[in-house]
């Protein structure tokens, strides 16, 4: 069945397509959905489906409340289905393309493909303007040349790129594309491939090149489709005026730990090492020595509304103080652990852990004479209970004041814990953790008691 959806007045084609799609099962549009002037045309297979569509004619409305007519007429099997290459034709196409593939360059040269003797000899017509032919070609590329870097489609009489637009999904690695000596008349055709991260493009010999008043307008228009383009028609492009602002740029900026100075680095690292040795291997009561009498501690874990099943972080859940969820002022006070006695009690009840020092990233982000703020991110492993072996990621922010003997006294402590992503955990826990030595690890009970008010010797 051949269905056409019409609109009376000037439509915005895209919007109409989406509107119509909203109310219908998705698969109807798979078969040659395309826009024709004021309408969108597609095929459905069943007469019952077509009749259901006809029933909504003039009943559904667009966003401007205009009624949308639907026309249905019986039709033969659409070209795209009818022209689908037979398996033996696909095989011959694959052989032809393989001959034209240069593995060392990851380059595929499809110049004048329709005239290739390997195809003509077998009486196979490959006209890349046909969707079925372009689709078959892209399928071969996807399956056999998944790392393709360079694609040459010059001299193929291409006047539209509807079929090639699938290259974004099927050959996303392509960086060099040659479309020269075709019959493209408008940049609109190129914009169908927007999203392809092209670095080099050849367009000379297409009518569209002559539609621009000057070279810079031409370059700008092409660059709008392909912002990462470095070369056009063999010419190096001037660097864009604006900074290249996509994700790689952002990520390139990222650096490791920031300490500010070597002194702070050794102070903070020494502190963290001692803190986590006691935290992981010692008696957490001893950590009292690291906290100010009136220190604060709180923690939070992610809350996933889409995943109501009990999180593996449930041991942390009852203390989680995520104020995005927790609105009760009383609970907000309750969950902010205040005074070192309460904090140490809380820490002692939290699950036993092993922190991976090698994973630590530290930012020392504020310093005055009287305070030091630093945050440490990294990984730890649960070492007991049902979640034994689970790897978590954490970020912990400390605010500390200077204490005696060049050590630190924690006044604020905020802990964020989440499940670690498998990609993060690779190799981290294969590195052996620092083995505790008897002197620093198991301080005698008396030493912890006497040094209550100030950090115990091993924290100094």
């Amino acid at each position, binding site marked *: 069945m051949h269905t056409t959806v019409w609109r009376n007045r000037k439509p915005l084609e895209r919007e109409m397509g989406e509107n119509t799609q909203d109310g219908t099962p998705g698969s109807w549009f798979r078969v040659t959905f395309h826009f024709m002037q004021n309408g969108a045309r597609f095929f459905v297979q069943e007469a019952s489906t077509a009749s259901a569509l006809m029933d909504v004619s003039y009943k559904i409305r667009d966003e401007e409340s205009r009624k949308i007519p639907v026309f249905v007429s019986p039709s033969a099997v659409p070209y795209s289905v009818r022209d689908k290459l037979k398996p033996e034709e696909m095989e011959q196409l694959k052989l032809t393309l393989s001959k034209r593939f240069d593995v060392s360059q990851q380059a595929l040269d499809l110049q004048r493909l329709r005239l290739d003797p390997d195809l003509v000899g077998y009486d196979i017509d490959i006209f890349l303007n046909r969707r079925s032919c372009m689709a078959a070609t892209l399928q071969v590329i996807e399956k056999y040349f998944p790392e393709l870097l360079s694609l040459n489609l010059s001299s193929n009489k291409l006047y539209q790129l509807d079929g090639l637009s699938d290259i974004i999904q099927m050959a996303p690695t392509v960086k060099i594309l040659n479309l020269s000596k075709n019959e493209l008349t408008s940049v609109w055709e190129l914009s169908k491939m927007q999203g392809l991260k092209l670095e080099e493009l050849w367009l000379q010999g297409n009518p569209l090149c002559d539609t621009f008043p000057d070279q810079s307008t031409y370059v700008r228009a092409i660059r709008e489709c392909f912002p990462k383009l470095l070369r056009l028609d063999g010419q190096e492009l001037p660097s864009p005026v604006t900074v290249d602002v996509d994700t790689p740029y952002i*990520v390139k900026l990222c650096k490791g730990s920031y300490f500010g100075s070597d002194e702070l680095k050794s102070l903070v690292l020494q502190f963290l090492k001692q803190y986590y040795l006691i935290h992981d291997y010692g008696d957490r009561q001893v950590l009292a020595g690291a906290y100010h009498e009136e220190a604060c501690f709180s923690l*939070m874990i992610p809350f996933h509304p889409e995943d109501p099943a009990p999180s593996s972080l449930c041991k942390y859940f009852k203390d989680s103080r995520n*104020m995005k969820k927790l609105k009760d002022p009383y609970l907000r006070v309750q969950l902010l652990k*205040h005074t070192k006695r309460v904090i140490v009690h809380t820490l002692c009840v939290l699950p036993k852990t092993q922190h991976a020092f090698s994973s630590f990233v530290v930012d020392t*982000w*504020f310093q*005055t004479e*009287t305070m030091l703020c630093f945050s440490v991110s990294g990984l730890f492993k649960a070492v007991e209970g049902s979640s034994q072996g689970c790897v978590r990621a954490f970020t912990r922010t400390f605010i500390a004041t200077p204490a005696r003997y060049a050590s630190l006294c924690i006044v604020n402590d905020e802990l964020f814990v989440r499940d670690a992503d498998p990609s993060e955990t690779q190799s981290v826990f294969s590195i052996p953790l620092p083995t505790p030595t008897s002197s620093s690890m198991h301080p005698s009970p008396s030493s912890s008691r006497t040094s209550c008010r100030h950090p115990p010797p091993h924290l100094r």
Partner: protein
Amino acid sequence: MRKSSSSSSSQGDRERHQGDRERHQGGSGDVFEQPHTSHGRQESRTRRDSGNPAEEAAGTTPMARPMDFKIYVDQACKAAEEFVNIYYETMDKRRQALTRLYLDKATLVWNGNVVTGLEALTKFFDVLPSSEFQVNMLDCQPVHEQATQAQATVLVVTSGTVKFDGNRQHYFNQNFLLTAQSTADNIVWKIASDCFRFQDWESS
């Protein structure tokens, strides 16, 4: 910003810390130059002086908190919630106004890069691509007065997702130190320091 409890042991503590503070003080370049006083502070001081010996005596029950601590927590929560709404909205929609939320000498540590002062911050945010932040988590704590030289200060911790220029989504963690700045008729919270990191900064 909190006052010590009135129990004798922490009284002793306070004196000792006072001494510490004098020893460590004296940097005129600190962000926290002006000790801040407000009505709220005066009130809580009075409360503290009236004494609340229950706190130390109450053993492990977390119920026994001095009233002034609760006031500071409420104040911190209110400041943090208001701030976070304004900050990320400004970041996403009115980037050019963002530095108004920072103190003149504020510092930003952004994925390990340090940016200090309004001029550098303006430049940094100018170059940073347009953003779509979503904050999923928020926590805050009043920062102890001993660290802040009695300048009302709140630690704000956020976590969520961000897309720069509509690109791939990153999870992030961010910390802020907010300090209360008194103006003619009210208190304005400004950022003294800001620390931002992608959770996946290494694998990106």
